[in-house]
């Protein structure tokens, strides 16, 4: 729906609320107190822990009193509100600053590999595909373990989202630049960009820019959840990630296209991660892809897209399969928000749940090869050892099972419960010597 | 040590003795009765099965186990051949009566069967068993729907398998007995 609309820049909002904890790992500590003036790209949160990422101000302005809020993901965090003041880049200038302009492959050779990870950490880059795992951690452990291949994930993680697609079309060079840098940081891995076969224009754009760099552009089948590592890595390399393992275990590291572009910007231009491209789609008047400051209220994005249509019933941060429903339109945009999908009433209306008739559609669609219905039943009856035997912990929560379930059973929720409970059991077992 | 065992075991020994005595008494008192019950069921059937017979006597013809039926004058009037085989549901035990030349079947009695009640179990009906009377023992019998031929038996309604079982048990037993009889007498 929005794949044809070029990336537009959200005009600088008067106020942003930047949550400090937007990633997996330790929360950063606030470093800009209330009433201090901050400039574009200045740190608002600094981190001590390794697995963490700093947070930067997306605009110049004044810090207000910190608040706490709960993100749709359920994470509770301190947030730093900043009121815009002074000069802020906007429009074309901002787009050029972040994605556009000239990206010189030659300069990459001169960058010290250790330097890359440090810059990435300092720029607060996390996985922008939605996982929000701090990227520097990934790069450093990839280098320690030694990887052969860096896959740039150009598959949209969910249906309806087009942010990555537009990114590859409009900023192919930035993406590839970031990929080259990341590969260098990993100790010189080969690079493959994986693009779904419904985005052939992006493939052409990438191939044009990739000429002479040794980067392969690989097309993969368009099939949700191809954006997940567990599906993508086998599709590209033929190697299966072992149960409970990471791509690293098979010598692969995966980064999102947005992340790659952010790496390029951080290393070559010294810019922090302050904006991201967000797809706003569904029941809005002008769906599109926006370059928006992290911390901007979702309301601002929706208003910029012409506002929501009258039959809108639910707004989802992320995609329709795994995203989180917003309870509040002022919820800030975070690093991991790849889209805002406005669903109509008829999309979200559910028939009443009925008994499972064991039709096994969930088994047929499960990309991980699990038996969702049985895990869900085990979870519902609190039979955790049975859930364990059914490999509940391997679920990637893609939601395919619940999507197809004719009995409308909330399979993913039940499996999530089982996963959480099993993790807890494992933790207690580990603590007990 | 040993003494302790005995001191603990005396009760068991006493009880065992008491029980043994009781059992011995039971055995003595009822044994003949039980034997009679059993006899009445097999050999005791002979006077009802073989016309003219008053008593039967156990006999081995070759290796085949059979009863000879005698009339009051002590002449042999027939053979009673116990036979067993697989029915539809479980084993079927039969007594097959043959004339003294083992040439004709003179009767059939079902000792034990567990066929489907109301269906296969109808093989015990006298009406059905009567068909066997007078059938030749020299030819294998067949089950048919209409029973026209000399060696044909009409199936019990809806229970072809049970009927076939009976017929094949009869065939096999009679054939075996006739072979044995031949060898035995030479």
């Amino acid at each position, binding site marked *: 729906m929005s794949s044809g609309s070029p990336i537009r820049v959200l005009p600088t909002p008067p106020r942003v609320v930047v949550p400090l904890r937007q990633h997996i790992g330790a929360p950063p500590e606030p470093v800009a107190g209330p009433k201090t003036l901050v400039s574009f790209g200045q740190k608002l949160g600094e981190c001590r822990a390794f697995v963490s990422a700093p947070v930067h101000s997306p605009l110049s302005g004044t810090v207000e009193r910190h608040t706490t809020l709960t993100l749709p993901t359920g994470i509770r965090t301190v947030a730093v509100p900043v009121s815009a003041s002074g000069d802020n880049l906007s429009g074309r200038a901002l787009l050029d600053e972040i994605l556009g302009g000239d990206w010189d492959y030659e300069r990459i050779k001169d960058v010290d590999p250790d330097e890359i990870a440090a810059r990435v950490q300092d720029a607060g880059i996390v996985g922008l595909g939605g996982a929000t795992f701090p990227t520097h951690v990934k790069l450093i452990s990839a280098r320690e373990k030694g990887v052969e291949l860096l896959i740039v994930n150009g598959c949209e993680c969910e249906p309806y989202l087009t942010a990555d697609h537009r990114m590859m079309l409009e900023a192919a060079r930035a993406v590839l630049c970031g990929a080259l840098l990341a590969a260098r940081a990993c100790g010189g891995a080969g690079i493959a960009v994986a693009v779904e076969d419904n985005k052939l224009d992006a493939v052409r754009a990438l191939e044009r820019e990739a000429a002479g760099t040794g980067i392969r552009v690989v097309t993969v089948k368009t099939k949700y959840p191809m954006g997940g590592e567990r599906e993508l890595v086998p599709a590209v390399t033929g190697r299966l990630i072992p149960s409970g393992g990471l791509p690293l275990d098979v010598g692969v590291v995966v980064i999102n296209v947005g992340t790659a572009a952010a790496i390029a910007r951080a290393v070559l231009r010294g810019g922090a991660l302050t904006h991201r491209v967000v797809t706003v789609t569904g029941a809005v008047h002008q769906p599109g892809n926006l370059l928006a400051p992290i911390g901007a209220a979702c309301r601002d994005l929706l208003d910029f897209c012409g506002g929501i249509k009258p039959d809108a019933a639910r707004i989802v941060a992320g995609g329709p399969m795994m995203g989180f429903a917003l309870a509040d339109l002022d919820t800030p945009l975070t690093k991991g928000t790849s889209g805002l999908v406005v669903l109509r009433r008829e999309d979200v209306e559910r028939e009443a749940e009925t008994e499972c008739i064991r039709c096994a559609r969930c088994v047929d669609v499960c990309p991980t090869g699990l038996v969702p219905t049985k895990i869900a039943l085990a979870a519902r009856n609190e039979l955790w050892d049975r859930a364990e035997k059914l490999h509940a912990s391997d679920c990637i929560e893609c939601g395919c099972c619940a999507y197809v379930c004719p009995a409308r059973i909330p399979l993913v929720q039940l499996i999530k419960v089982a996963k959480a409970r099993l993790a807890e059991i494992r933790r207690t077992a580990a603590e007990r010597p | 040590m040993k003494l302790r065992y005995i001191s*603990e*075991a005396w*009760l*068991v020994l006493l*009880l*065992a003795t008491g*029980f043994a005595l*009781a*059992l011995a008494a*039971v*055995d003595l008192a*009822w044994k003949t*009765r*039980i034997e009679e*019950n*059993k006899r009445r*069921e097999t050999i005791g059937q002979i006077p009802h099965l073989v016309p003219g017979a008053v008593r039967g006597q156990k006999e081995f013809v070759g290796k085949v186990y059979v009863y000879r039926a005698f009339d009051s004058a002590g002449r042999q009037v027939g053979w009673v051949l116990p036979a067993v085989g697989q029915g539809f549901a479980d084993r079927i035990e039969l007594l097959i009566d043959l004339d003294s030349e083992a040439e004709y079947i003179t009767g059939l009695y079902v000792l034990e069967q567990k066929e*489907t*009640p*109301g*269906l296969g179990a109808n093989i015990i009906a006298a009406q059905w068993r009567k068909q066997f009377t007078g059938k030749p023992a020299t030819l294998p019998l067949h089950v048919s729907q209409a029973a026209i031929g000399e060696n044909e038996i009409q199936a019990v309604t809806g229970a072809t398998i049970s009927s076939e079982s009976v017929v094949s048990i009869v065939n096999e037993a009679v054939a075996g007995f006739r072979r044995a009889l031949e060898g035995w007498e030479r």
Partner: protein
Amino acid sequence: MTDDATPLERFLRGIIPENPVYRQLLGLCPTLAVTNNMKAAMTMSGAVLFVLLGANLVVSLIRGLLKPHLRILVFTLTIATFVTIADRFLAAFMYPMSKELGPYVPLIIVNCIIICRCEVCASRQSPAVAIADASGQSLGFALALASIATVREILGSGTWWGIRILPAGWDNWVIMVLPAGAFLTMGLLLGIANWLGTIRSETKGY
């Protein structure tokens, strides 16, 4: 489960509240195997009554002299003897019934009801109590068997105690006299018993 119950209480308890079949799920093999007609079921109940009475009485009489580690041995010996007597009696005086019951009479030896009563009651109580207990349990057993046999014989043969009670046009449910019918009847009657039990406790409770 107080142990100071009077013989009468013991007797009554065995019939419904501690019914060996419906409440304790004991003695299941005969319950299912011999209940395709009333006569067989009642003969079996009689045999169980005899063995249980005999075993309970003997065990109760010698309870003071019993060493714990010899207990099971003595129980088994006693029960096996009484069962043999019952079996021979049937063979001598009720031969067709003895054939019909077949191995289920000797199987009384391992019928859990009897071992259980010897263990729980007779080895601790006076002969009077033990006899009351044995009669109560046997009566409970008989009632359970009768209930199952009634359903199975009526549906399966159209008769009750050999007397035709359903009209001649009745097509017998052969399944009822076969093993499958036994299991199904038992399951459903058990369900009904539980259901009645809950209703009773509910009405008592409020």
